[in-house]
């Protein structure tokens, strides 16, 4: 690569890196329970070689019965060893994945479009896109899976090089081990790539070797599928929740028909197909991509949707030209058409986290769209000065609007998210655990009542509870029941607090809300004392710590 190429790329990476790494512990304002679980399991494996359930070097860890992939956990271990167990070390894997993905996107775009310029644009749009920045700032394993997937794609494009095909296969399969939706998308896309390039993959011996290599890598996955761990999450998210389709039910109730007529007029297969189609089309809807905030609290980017609005023109133009010259960009079109499939078979209407590869395709296409405009401006006039002027205006304009969008996003994440959307991020644990840690030795029991699920994992994480101790204190018989409903360990009890019953004991520490620990009732109990009220940014008490001496 030339010096200029490297400089531009470095600037893009720096910008992307800044947006992803700055204040990683401050925004989002606290960890969600999945992040805490990733972090604590990594911490546990680092110290004991076992996950929180005592399983030795697992491929999937049970966590909240949805069986999390362990690959992100293993990558987190060295970071936790260096930086300690905290928000930054937990989120760093995802953040770095986002940064490296921008580089891979540049390389893929350069290869597909046979020019570096669409690559710069694609990498730039990706580096500042709200979805990528946001998903990089939270430990979403999908971000790592996306990097693996993109590496697989990139290496496939260089399949003529030695070992490129094997490495491509390796990364593709790694993506399957890392996030659920890739378990469906990757095989479909890999098969599609193979079919599109079957004439180029003529060396049968190499092909057979690679197929065998792929099967070998997939064997543990097959085992996990058979015992249900690799598909556990699908049971909670399947679209079969909409069978029979709700609209069909309403129509049948209001308009009773029978026999063949009913089958034709009120056909549940048709309405179910409609549910699927609504989801599929929804992932291409400009309103979802550019206008709507996410309906899912932990995926919500304040005041922004998935992509920056200014990309709309580039995306429309690029999409049009790519579809028009489809034979040249078959791989991109294939990925674009396949990417929504894993999301379509789930019940959510528009779940951005399940279709990240689709958004990456949009970054490619927007990049190409911008390149087309640039190319058109260069040939707009035969006069060199005018050409240069137009190109300069375009570049300055795009970079200015791009930078504005990047800093608007930065402001939304650093200011609006912690201030207005703190409620989506389980407020209170981060601030209260140092107090609990300081006091825990003075009490026989610590009772934690939380409005949030999975309080035990936040306790383990923020207390940095020694994993050896935790594994010794676990009641393996009680936690073997699935879904898990028992979380106590050591002196920590996780249950509802009902003050009229609870006020009778001694040497107990309570952590709850203003509803479970009402101020007046505490004052009326002689040996009870409010130790601390933890307030959220709006000034309301999110956690109350009470001692019973």
């Amino acid at each position, binding site marked *: 690569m030339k010096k200029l190429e490297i400089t531009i790329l470095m600037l893009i990476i720096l910008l992307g890196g800044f947006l992803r790494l700055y204040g990683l512990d401050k925004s989002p304002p606290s960890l969600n329970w999945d992040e805490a679980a990733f972090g604590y399991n990594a911490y546990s494996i680092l110290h004991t070689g076992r996950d929180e359930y005592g399983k030795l070097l697992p491929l999937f860890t049970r966590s909240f019965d949805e069986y999390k992939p362990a690959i992100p956990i293993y990558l987190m271990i060295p970071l936790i060893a260096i930086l300690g167990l905290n928000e930054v070390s937990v989120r760093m894997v995802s953040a770095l994945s986002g940064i490296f993905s921008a580089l891979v996107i540049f390389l893929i775009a350069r290869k597909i479009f046979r020019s570096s310029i669409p690559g710069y644009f694609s990498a730039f749009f990706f580096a500042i896109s709200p979805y990528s920045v946001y998903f990089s700032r939270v430990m979403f394993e999908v971000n790592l899976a996306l990097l693996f997937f993109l590496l697989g794609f990139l290496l496939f494009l260089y399949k003529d090089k030695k070992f490129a095909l094997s490495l491509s296969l390796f990364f593709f399969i790694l993506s399957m081990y890392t996030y659920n939706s890739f378990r469906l998308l990757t095989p479909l896309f890999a098969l599609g790539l193979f079919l599109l390039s079957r004439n180029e993959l003529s060396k049968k011996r190499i092909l057979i070797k690679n197929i065998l290599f792929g099967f070998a890598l997939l064997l543990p996955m097959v085992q996990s599928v058979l015992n249900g761990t690799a598909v556990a999450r699908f049971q909670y998210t399947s679209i079969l929740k909409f069978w029979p389709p709700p609209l069909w039910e309403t129509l049948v109730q209001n308009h009773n028909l029978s026999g063949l007529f009913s089958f034709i007029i009120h056909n549940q297969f048709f309405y179910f197909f409609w549910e699927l189609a*609504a989801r599929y089309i929804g992932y291409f809807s400009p*309103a979802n991509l550019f*206008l709507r905030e996410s309906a899912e609290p932990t995926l919500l980017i304040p005041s922004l949707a998935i992509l920056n609005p200014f990309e709309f023109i580039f995306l429309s133009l690029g999409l049009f030209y790519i579809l028009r010259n489809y034979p040249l960009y078959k791989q991109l079109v294939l990925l674009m058409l396949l990417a929504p499939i894993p999301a379509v078979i789930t019940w959510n209407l528009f779940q951005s986290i399940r279709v990240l590869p689709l958004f990456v395709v949009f970054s490619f296409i927007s990049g190409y769209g911008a390149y087309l405009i640039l190319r058109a401006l260069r040939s707009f006039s035969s006069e060199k000065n005018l050409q240069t002027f137009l190109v300069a205006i375009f570049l300055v304009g795009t970079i200015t609007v791009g930078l504005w969008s990047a800093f608007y996003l930065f402001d939304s994440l650093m200011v609006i998210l912690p*201030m207005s959307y703190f409620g989506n991020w389980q407020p209170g644990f981060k601030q209260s655990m140092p107090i609990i840690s300081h006091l825990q030795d003075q009490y026989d029991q610590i009772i934690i009542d939380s409005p949030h699920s999975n309080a035990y994992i936040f306790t383990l994480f923020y207390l940095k509870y020694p994993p050896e101790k935790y594994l010794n204190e676990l009641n393996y018989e009680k936690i073997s029941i699935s879904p898990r409903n028992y979380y106590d360990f050591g002196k920590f009890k996780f249950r509802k607090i009902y003050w009229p019953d609870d006020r009778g004991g001694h040497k107990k520490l309570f952590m709850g809300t203003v509803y479970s620990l009402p101020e007046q009732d505490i004052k009326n109990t002689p040996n009870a004392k409010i130790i601390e009220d933890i307030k959220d940014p709006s000034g309301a008490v999110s956690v109350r710590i009470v001692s019973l001496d």
Partner: protein
Amino acid sequence: MKKAFTIFLIGVIFIVCLIVRFQFDSPVTYQEATESYNSYSLLLTGKGVNRERWPMIFKGEENFPSTLAIYTRLPFIKILGLNNFSVRLPAILSGSLSLILFLFWIYQQRNFIPILQRSEGKILITLSGLLFTFSPWLIVQHIFNLADSLALLLILAGNILHSFRNNKTFWTLGVVLLLLSPLASVKSLPFSLFILSYQGYKLYGRKGLGLGLLSIGTLLILIKLNSGFGTYFIRNSIISDIIPSNYSWKIERRLSYDQVEQSTILVGGKNLNRLIHNKYLYGLNNVFLGLISPFNFEYLSSPFQTQPLLEKESISPKALPKIFFLELPLMLLGIIIVFKKAPKLLFLGAAGLSSAVFSGSPDGLFYLLLFLLIAEAIALITIYHLKKFGFTLSLLILLLFCTSQISFFDLLKNHQTEWVAENDLRQWQIWNRLKNPLNNYSKITVTNRLGEPVNYFLFYNKYPPGDYQAVRTLGGINEDLIRQVRSIKNIDFISFKYLESDRKPNQLWVGLAGEFVGKFNSYKDVNEVSDGKVIYKINGVKQSDQYLGDELWFVETRFEK
């Protein structure tokens, strides 16, 4: 013989088009009620509801009813009276007439568009006609929306007349029709402006572009005639997105957040956030957002399936699908083929797009529909001619089309409660229950929390327009400088708190349950209220205020002696 067969075929399509649009029993929309009562008023008093004699611009309570829609309905209401049939018949007829003009217009294009000259040209015309006939969006518009139906009819007619280049009378008439279309629907203005400019350019070269200025002149005249129209025009177009007053509050809010939170770019007492939060960049961003807004697939294709998304927006999720799912990829494919094989058709697409973008709402895409239907027909023909799976794919598409169409008609005809707008439905229920209400009670109070009840009352009760103009009481001026009607004789149209209101014997109060008893856990168990009895309930009312419940109550005051 051949000509006779063509006429017969067109006749058959026209009749089918009419039949599928026959839908008279569903409740009138707010727009229909407002427009038709204005027509009724003109017929009986020679004045619109605002006492203006044969006006060019009518002022409604929240909008400007379509001038041409009001005048077009006059003969129908004169002959048939004020009812659903007379209100909808002109829309259905103008929609069906549009079909014939549409077919004729495509036929006219055969000399310019090579694809129409080939053997499949006739199939393309027939297919476009069929898609037009059965398009769910067109069906709905041709039943309920006379304004847009008329605008489309005028644009098609104007366009056809323009093709007679050597006949100046026809050409001028074409210009007049195009200039009239904004009087039918203001959304059509960019469309007609685009077509005028294009036709002018084709005939006179660059000088002909001046014709476009005529359209702008028309608009300025309309604004001059009524200053409120200018406000309305801006409010309903992308212009409102660019005006700083519409987003400066957002800038201030963000800046104030930054102050409170001590943003990282609040450096050394200087607020660098101004670099991000300023009106220039917000304005530019809003332009992009305005461009994107019309392309709302959830609203266009699947309001039933996507309610959770749409409910968060101002768009009502209670609506029939406008475009079937399978049509979207077909339309996209068609556009790509048009670019390659029939680029001259693009002017129609560009014209339609201008209206969509200008309106900044999905409804504006209606004017792009003609182009999209032709594109879809081209895509279907291309698929049919595919060497591999062409026939199978076509058969599958046909099957899906038929199923979608059956489902659509089932919804349209048999499940009105699923798609009729909530306010239209509830007002229809209220005024069906209260026939000649003034004869039975000393005073009636009807809540205005379910739309503006006045126009529905006037329509359903055929209230004498002369009386209405003389006895109505006007309320305050709202933010759009429009004065709302507060009462007519002894009927009040206001939201109320029953317990705090002045109650007298022999009164009827119609409102949401919460307006009578406040927030309550079980409205369904309540049959009596203070000084009154609930004589009728309507259940399942959807409205935004959760404290008011989902029941509509009719309460008669009863005082113990």
